[in-house]
């Protein structure tokens, strides 16, 4: 097991390295000159030249990359070009906020998605199934910004239950933030909820057809026990894979929702960085996003292995 995790970490490192290369090169080739950006339109030629020297912008590409990478690994993520503040603490505080949002999103769609999927499978082709299947299809087709735009009028203006603007103070506690988190979380969750419900439905239907579920019934086990002990454990395997594969979608969705709801998370920071061509900020945010994706996949694989003895490593 340990060697497996080590191996996986190894491959994650490789992926992160490749991603860093790509991210670094893209940001380097963005239109506009960094020094010009920093100093503004009216800087003198000389000032620009000095700054280029200071930033090492005249060095060959690989040296620039190495410098950046070494610093990055050491936690020195540079200063924001716009605010001149160190990027690292900025990203970290936003990451915390995004994590809070992610927790709420997961708590919303995983249990409800599974519940709906199982329910649909059990009531296969009857009205509950038809309703659930239709709704989850709608959810899948619904982009986050559309669902946000539908949710805001409904909950904020019409019902008046929840705030439409989630621009909380950057270091609010989870309790303080929670009311502001719900609406963006729902907006993000709906999409994945549809996927999870559909996957769970399909997985459960497959498993309910298996010989071992029939055998469990014919052992005289009560229906609930057959479902929970014999069917669900196997039925949820594909769902777990979907949740992990969905992590990318979720991160993308969160980005949109953070922007729409004005929530101070990583996504909004990234957008802010892009709007201002704040290269260190863009680089840092993208790298964190890549690392998160890899981690999510690793966790999903480990969970899958834990539930599925066929690939459990001794």
């Amino acid at each position, binding site marked *: 097991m340990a060697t497996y995790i080590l191996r996986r970490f190894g491959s994650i490192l490789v992926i992160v390295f490749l991603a860093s290369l790509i991210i670094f090169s893209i940001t380097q080739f963005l239109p506009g000159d960094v020094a010009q950006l920093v100093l503004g339109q009216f800087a003198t030629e000389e000032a620009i030249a000095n700054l280029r020297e200071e930033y090492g912008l005249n060095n060959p590409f690989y040296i620039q990359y190495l410098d950046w990478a070494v610093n990055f690994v050491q936690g020195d993520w540079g200063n924001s070009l716009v605010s001149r503040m160190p990027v690292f603490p900025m990203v970290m505080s936003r990451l915390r906020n995004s994590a809070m949002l992610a927790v709420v999103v997961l708590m919303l769609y995983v249990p409800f998605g599974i519940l709906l999927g199982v329910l649909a499978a059990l009531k296969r082709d009857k009205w509950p199934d038809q309703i659930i299947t239709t709704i989850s299809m709608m959810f899948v087709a619904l982009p986050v910004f559309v669902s946000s735009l539908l949710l805001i009028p409904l909950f904020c203006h019409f019902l008046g239950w929840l705030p439409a603007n989630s621009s909380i103070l950057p270091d609010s506690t989870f309790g303080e933030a929670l009311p502001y988190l719900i609406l963006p979380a729902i907006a993000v969750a709906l999409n994945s909820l549809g996927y999870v419900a559909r996957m769970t439905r399909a997985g459960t239907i497959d498993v309910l057809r298996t010989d*071992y579920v029939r055998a469990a019934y014919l*052992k005289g*086990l009560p229906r609930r026990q057959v479902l929970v002990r014999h069917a669900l*454990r196997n039925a949820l395997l594909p769902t777990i894979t979907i949740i992990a594969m969905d992590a990318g979608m979720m991160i993308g969705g969160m980005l949109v929702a953070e922007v729409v709801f004005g929530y101070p998370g990583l996504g909004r920071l990234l957008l802010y960085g892009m709007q201002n061509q704040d290269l260190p900020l863009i680089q840092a945010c993208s790298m964190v996003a890549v690392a998160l994706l890899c981690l999510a996949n690793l966790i999903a694989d480990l969970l899958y292995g834990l539930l599925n003895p066929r690939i459990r490593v001794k």
Partner: protein
Amino acid sequence: MTEMYRSQKSIDTDPILDVRNLTVTYRTGQGLVYTVRDVSLQIAAGEIYGLVGESGSGKSTLARAIVRYLADNGQINSGSIKLGNTDLLTLPMSKMQKIWGSRITMVHQDPAAAVNPSITIGEQIAEVARLHLHMSSSQAREKALEMLRKMRMPDPESVAKRYAHQLSGGMLQRVVIAIALTTNPELLIMDEPTTSLDVTTEAAILDLVRELLTEYNMAVLFITHNLGVVANICNRVGVMYAGEIMEEGTVRQVFNHKLHPYTRGLLGCLPKVTNDKRNVSLSAIPGFIPRMNHLPSGCIFGPRCKLVEDDCQAERPSQVEAEAGHFTACRRWEALQSNPDLLMDVQQVRDMDEHEEGPLVFTASNIKKYFDVTASGFDSLFKQSGTEIKAVDDVSVGVRGGFTLGVVGESGCGKTTFARCIAGLEEATSGKMELEGQLLPYTVAKRTSAQKKRIQMVFQNPDASLNPHYTIGDSVSRPFVLMGDLSKEEIQMRVKELFSAVNLPEDYINRLPHELSGGEKQRIAIARAMASEPTMILCDEPLSSLDVSVQAALINLLIKLQDSSKISYLFISHDLAAVRYISDWVAVMYLGRICEIGSSEDVFLPPYHPYTEALLSAIPVPDPDVQQERIRLEGNVPSPIDLPSGCRFHTRCPRKIGEICEAQEPPWQDVSDHHQICCHITLDELRTMQSEVIVGQADTLREVR
């Protein structure tokens, strides 16, 4: 009316299971289908009742109806089912559930599918003990171990902690039986329990069931399509056909007297290990099992019965008790009783001279096929890399023109891989193949089109080679079109010829594959293979997905085609009787190697290789009077990744002589003309320790002759 006869049938004790006049229907798109009609059967404690029938006979539906676990569209229309004094049909479902797993238990066909993959074996037994025997967790765990021990499971403690994928099919079936016996049920229903297992495993499971029955005094309903298994293990037997029981009686009564034309038909189509194509021809039952929504009037077997007369079609014949406890649903049973050879005499001697050995058309020398298990992608992270599976390891054979070489062995012995190497579908790792004196490249891609034409293949699943969207006429004409040197009319002609060669009516040419039965599709596959006038056809388990009555017709067809066009076959099968029957030469394979090879008469007579001997003794012979040596193999087939040293069979060989078997590869010994055995035991010793494994059937055969 049936009731009247039934009431006379007395079983000494009251039956445990008493089914009377049961009718089961399914609602389908074509209306109500009567799948089981007016069936009655009783099983007493300690009795194994064999229910035999071909696919579509309704035997599984009957089993499901008994436990009231029918599909949603199924329904019990009339009749009664009693378990002891309990009337099962009037019970509410909640009470029925309490009976499942405690008073009635079931064992299904595919043990690998019936065991939950993510719950430990021990727990799957223990949960039954907790539920029905109200045991505590620790008692239940102890009970699980006890049950595994009773199943003669080696190392029960570790097995209890394992998962399904870590056990072999035979072990899993023991687990399923253990689960079924934990509660000491009154009725055990086994639905094709050994069908998915190898013969040696099957024999061991049947032994186990037989032994366990002396301890557990229950009634067993044993459902199977295999008459051999019935003759082996059952006390009484019911022969089911298209939803009705045609004949019922003790195993000896039914097998010896055969008072129904269908029973005679079934037994007549079975190739026997003591027969070959030269001394008898198989008698296939003409026609098909009727579709349940188009049942013939009167006797349902009428359209396929050679004894049919007008009265048969007027009214459904009632069951008659021909002798005490022996029932038949044939009006003309007296004719059958007075003439035991009636309908059987078609097993006439085939007029085949000992034909001259043709020239060697194909040779394979030292063929090896190793698979690398450096798995790719995600799986590679879990598996050790750099290991090899030696699927075929140094196999050499020769095939003569107009001859059949049979290759037998259990699953995993490499016989299919070997055939695929010859066909070029798998690239051999090393070795040499020659076709009619020409070197044959390893893969299809490198072979000339002439070479490709000369070797054809027929697969187990005929669907694999038929495009569902093309008419079967198109499928058969495709090889001609590809050849490109025939006009449309000529192609038409050839296709018609082929259809008549494989006994299919010409109007089938325009049908689509799904309109054909399994046997018909296999005929098409053969016709396609014949189209290019090949030198050799590789038949990979061509019969195993078909019913016995269809198998016989297909075997006859293969022999007829060989006779007329001097084609050679490499016939691969796990069915020793079929191989014995159709082959001139037989090679026995174990773990990627041939261990015995010779003419089929020689291989099936002593001296045998110890593995051949074990295989022969495991065959379920469809004759209760046959004496069969009982040699059973221990343990599982070793993994081909980790082959045993020395003789590959030493881990299971019942005749192992000692360390030499583990240390040294055994030598090839010549018994006679081309009959060779690969074993450390000398031939003389083999001769003294072995006697004919199957005795008895040959005598009846001689009488017939």
